[in-house]
Structure formats: C-alpha cells, structure tokens
C-alpha cells in the first residue's frame, strides 16, 4: 500500500456529471487488483477533510497509468473534476480485497449499475486475460454514460445494455436483462457472478443470485474515514458472522448471497 502524490495525466468528461481521470503511479499499477479501491484526498487543507474512496477503473501495466471513473455527487467529487493535467493527486492504495478470480469457473456474468461500471473495466481485463468468457449486463439512467464497450465487444465480451431513458439498448432496468439472462443460465455451474452498483440495485440482484447455482461477488459502498480497517466506520453485516465486517478492509468485495442489507 502506498500513499503518494501522482501527477494527473488526463481529465475527460463522459457526460456533464461523469468523468474519467487518469494519473500515473507505477507502484499502484504494479500491485492493484480488480475490485480494489484508492483513497483520494481531493484537496489539501480541511475542506473537505476526509479522503474519498474510488474504485480502480483501469490500469495500463505498460505505462503505469491508472484511471478512475466517477460521478460528481458532492463537494469532493466536484473538486476532483476540477483538477487538471499536471496537478498532483494525493492517492492512498491500492486498498481492500478485490474480486476473487481464482477457482473453477469458465464464464463470468457481470452486472453493473450506474457508477458500478467503474470497477468493471479492470475486472473484465483481468477475466479476459485469464481466458474467461464474459457477459456484461450494464444498466444506466442516461445512455451517454455507456462508453468504451466497443473494445470489449471486439474482444468477444457479450455486452448488453439497459438504459432508463431508452436511448441505448433495452429500455428499463439492468435487472430485467438479468432476469432474461438467468432464465437460461441460472443452473449453469460454469458461471461466476459479479455485481457492482448502488445498494438499491444489489438488493434485487441478490434475490436473483440466491436462485442461481453459482457464486456471486458484490462490490459494496459505505462511507469511509480511514480506508484501512482502523476506524471501524464502514461495517457491513454478513450472514453467520457475529461481528461487522469492514467494507474497506474485508471488502469492498463480499459474497453477495451472504450480505445482510438493511442493518
């Protein structure tokens, strides 16, 4: 784990509220794994005080370039979006335990909702390099937030898109795509499921997942202070575990079927 000042290489807007920021850190590029996150200090000083957790969106191992995909939702992300190439980015990470890609499975089913798309690119890159067959179900509100899928389609990923505004793919929710998909694959042992998205999406996906024979991993979000398991702020309840698990340290990836939502 590192804590460094990394120069920003590029800041690109995907929509008015979604941005793609890249910077260089060889150390993080070398050690980061899909599903891990970085803890970013968006400004020196005390406003805002705490770091912001953001998933690793993608890593270019050649150049050491790392990218983040984020939505502007509050003060921290607003300041992050205003950063410019050359500015130093204060980055701590890689943090947490990423997706577990070990073990026996040949097909990956990925369900992503909204900014849940952020960690997915890195995940797909890793799955493809392990020779897995990948299906991505990606749902967003606004079709313009879907980007970069061509590359994966070319690489053989089965990409299916749902948009609430109907501007791209299926009009509606990603869970509807999942429903259709599972009609034929729910009993297929060769799959492993991965899901990234807001809690309101994880909940219905969990219900679907519990009806499948294969295992699912979900990436969670919780408010964080330390990001390293020290402050005990980011707990989540896991079935059959007496104690809270910490999203930052024991996660952010957990066994979807075991997560107890709604504390």
């Amino acid at each position: 784990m590192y804590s460094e000042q990394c120069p920003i290489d590029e800041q690109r807007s995907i929509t008015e509220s979604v941005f793609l920021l890249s910077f260089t850190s060889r150390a993080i590029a070398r050690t980061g794994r899909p599903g891990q996150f970085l803890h970013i200090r968006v400004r020196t000083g005390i406003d805002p005080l705490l770091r912001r957790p953001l998933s690793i969106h993608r890593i270019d191992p050649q150049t050491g370039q790392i990218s983040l995909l984020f939505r502007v939702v509050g003060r921290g992300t607003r300041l992050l979006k205003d950063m410019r190439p050359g500015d130093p980015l204060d980055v701590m990470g890689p943090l947490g335990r990423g997706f577990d890609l070990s073990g026996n499975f040949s097909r990956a089913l990925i369900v992503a909702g909204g900014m849940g798309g952020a960690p997915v690119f890195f995940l797909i890159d890793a799955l493809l390099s392990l020779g897995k067959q990948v299906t991505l179900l990606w749902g967003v509100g606004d079709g313009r937030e879907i980007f970069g899928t061509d590359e994966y389609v070319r690489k053989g990923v089965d990409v299916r898109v749902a948009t609430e505004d109907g501007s791209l793919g299926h009009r509606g929710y990603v869970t509807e795509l999942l429903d259709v998909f599972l009609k034929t694959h729910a009993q297929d042992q060769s799959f492993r499921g991965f899901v990234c998205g807001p809690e309101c999406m994880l909940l219905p996906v969990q219900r679907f997942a519990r009806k499948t024979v294969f295992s699912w991993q979900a990436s969670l979000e919780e408010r964080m202070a330390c990001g390293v398991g020290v402050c005990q702020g980011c707990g989540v309840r896991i079935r059959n575990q007496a104690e809270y698990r910490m999203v930052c340290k024991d996660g952010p990836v957990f066994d979807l079927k075991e997560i107890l939502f709604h504390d």
Partner: protein
Amino acid sequence: MTDLTVRIGRLTLKNPVLTASGTFGYGPEYADYVDLNRLGGLITKTITLEPRGGNPMPRIAEMPAGMLNSIGLANVGVERYLAEKLPLLEKYETAVIANLAGSTVEEYARVVMKVQKHPRVDGIEVNVSCPNVRKGGLAFGTDPDVLCELVRSVRSETDKTVIVKLSPNVTDIRPVAMAAASGGADALSLINTVMGMGIDIRTRKPLISRITAGLSGPAIKPIAMAKVYEAAQAVDLPLIGIGGIMNGEDAVEFLMAGASAVQVGTLNFVDPAGCLKVLEGIETFCREQGIAKVSDLVGAMDHG
C-alpha cells in the same frame, strides 16, 4: 538537536507524539505508512471486558473541518487483545498504552487488572468519556465524585502509569480534572470527542444511526485548547493534548497551552503518515526557535 523526551507519569516517552485511541487500531494497521518505532507512543483502541460489535451503521459522517463518529467502542475484548493484538507490538520499540473502559467501576477495575500485567503494556489510558456508549460511559467523565472513585479503584490495580482521558462535554473541566488527580491519576489526556449531530435533509435521517455522535478533527481544536489550558490551571499533572492536531504547529500550540505531549487522531485517516509529520513539524519549530528541550515549551504561553 532538541531533546524530545517527555515524562508522562512514570513513563518517559521518546517524543511527545502519540496516536489517539480508536484512530490507529491496535497498532500495526498503519505500519505500511508509519515507522512505528518513531512514535512517542501508541494508544490502542478502547478495550472492554467482553468483545463489542459496536453501534449500527452508519457510524461516521464528514462535517465541516471534522467528522462525527459513533463506533460504540467496537473491540475484540480483553482476552483477544492480550492473546492476539499485544503480541503484534512486541517487535516495535515504542510505548504502548492500553485504552480501557467498562460499564461499572468493577468492570473498569477488572479489565485494568487483566491488561496491566502484560509486559507490552507501558501504561493505561482510562476512557471515561466516550459519548457513544449508552450505559454508563459518559457519566464517569462528567461527575467528579464518580470519577474520583473510578480512578481510585483503577489506581489500586496497577503500578503502571494511569492516564485518565477526559470528556469536553462538561460545563467546567476543572473539577473533573481535580477529581481524576485526587483519585490518583498520573496524567490526564484531553479531549475526547465533542457531542454533535447531523441530518441528511433529503432522506430526513440522522447521519449517524444513534443520532448524536462524537465530533473530532480541526473543528474542535480551539475547544480542546481551551480545555487543556483550563485543566493546566487546575491540576499539577502532565496533560496530553488531543483534538484536531493536523501538523507540528498545532501540536506546539497544545504544548504551550500546558500539554506535555499530544495525541493525533483524525489526521491519521486523512494522512496515514500524518503523525510523523506532526513530529517533524515540532522538531522543525524547535530547531528554528533554538529550543533545547521540547519540555521547555510546556505551558510556555506568554500571558502578557
């Protein structure tokens, strides 16, 4: 070279910078970022007799220049602390201070008794001030008589340094400080968090499940400074200043107000190597000002 050592009760610390309980885990969690051997001391998360799961989520929220927490003393309990956590600190050469709490005077005494004999424990910090535990907790820190009795009972269990950590949520810190002194404390640390709360106006829910919580960070620094200054007028014990320290200059301010050492809390979350930068900042200040001994700064405010 400035002499950085400070005496806190029966302990001599190599420098005046400690990490605050609950913000540095059991010690090794930040070892990737901080050379623990450079710390003046390390205060572990509050330990209670039985393990505690802590309060429901959400437990933390960001505030202007600060944060709220209501962890509720989540901890592994004294047995696992002794068996699993303290041994991890064996290889480090820094003072280890065990922060302890209970719901009754007897519980405090029992957990102190168990912990104090462990060779890796150099001192005890008694947490009488956590605003986030329902039973007891806060009352110990606000009622001088109860506090005096509690400290006396803890004192009788150990010969190691006993530090009493005070709450700022009182009308007057002086009688509380005096009660801890007369109970036999070797030193006082102050402050614990300040009671606060916040609401998410869109969901209308409190930001913290237990509604009120403890405020920490730079926002409380002026409050902590006033409490340290007032306590220094009231008692003759070494004080450890805590609250919103972000750099060496903040730490020096606490020393000048009357603290013999400081603890770094929330800063650890913001900058995992922050505590060492605080130490370096103190050293720089001493060098620039030609201060021979850091202890010369203690209470050095010029009253004019």
